[in-house]
């Protein structure tokens, strides 16, 4: 047992903070290296959403960003997609 455990400080050790920050920043750095990756996701999302709704493909925006998780405010990477919907397709066939 050491002093840090007595005072309950071991959860927020600075190396863990460094690791988390580093992992996040690398997600961005690495994705910057391959824009192809985002394009592929974009194509697949368009294809799938298109089955349910008519979307404005020009206005479609997909990006990798950093945000805080709602539950515990910890930073995380998120894929944020902004998909303008022109018209929901006839939903009769799904009911």
């Amino acid at each position, binding site marked *: 047992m050491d002093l840090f455990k007595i005072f309950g400080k071991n959860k927020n050790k600075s*190396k*863990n903070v460094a690791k988390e920050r580093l992992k996040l920043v690398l997600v961005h750095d690495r994705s910057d290296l391959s824009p192809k990756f985002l394009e592929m996701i974009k194509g697949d999302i368009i294809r799938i959403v298109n089955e349910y709704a008519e979307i404005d493909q020009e206005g479609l925006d997909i990006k990798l960003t950093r945000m805080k998780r709602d539950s515990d405010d910890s930073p995380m990477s998120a894929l944020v997609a902004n998909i303008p919907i022109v018209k929901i397709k006839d939903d009769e066939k799904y009911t």
Partner: protein
Amino acid sequence: MGIGKAIVITSGKGGVGKTTTTANIGTGLAMLGNKVAVVDTDIGLRNLDVVLGLENRIVYDIVDVVEGNCRLKQGLIRDKRFEGLYLLPAAQTRDKTAVSPEQMIELVNKLKEEFDYIVIDSPAGIEQGFKNSIAGVEEAYIVTTPEISAVRDADRVIGLLESQGIKNPKLIINRIRYDMVKKGDMMNVDDIVGILAVDLIGIIPDDESIVISTNKGEPVVFQDKPLAAKAYKNICSRITGEEVELLNLETNEGKLSKIIKLLFSK
């Protein structure tokens, strides 16, 4: 002479110990009986000469060799202290554009005919100087420290090396402080290797003896005692194909901290 192997020591971030590492690996390989050329490609900011203590012996430099102002043999400075160690210094009054990657390939190929190992010190950054330094090499060793900024830049360089066709770069983690790692205030070897996902070729402890030996212009591998000297020697042995266990940095612990550990280890 057979065909030599060219290794670049690179990092992305400056100040993590590339030049010290180049000097020690070059010297260490020579001490193992190899013929070694260390090459400084940091044109305009040359430093490998002072770290090796050869700054007073420079007549020609890498640009002179490439431009044909002198023969390759004239450009190489023989280190009188270590049999088989030669330095090709960078030019101080020119800039990175004085040498092209094609010229570097030609130079490295010529060196390979004469030497067992060519150890190339890369400049910081990822611009032309970096591109020159990796031209014509078989292997790349990336130096990082356990800091977030250095590891980030190392990751970037790993990506660039792989895109240039230099596969499986190996990692050297420099300036590890065992006391801080133990307290959880410094990323440890596993943390860094896990994040970068590359093979490790060595770890170097943060050691005062490095500063002292650099002050004197004598690579630390020349000494027996310092832990950093052992660490560099281990790297050299691994380069030559020997299997050596990673250094146990715990032995660096002082007596006082051992007593403290005893008191709290219930």
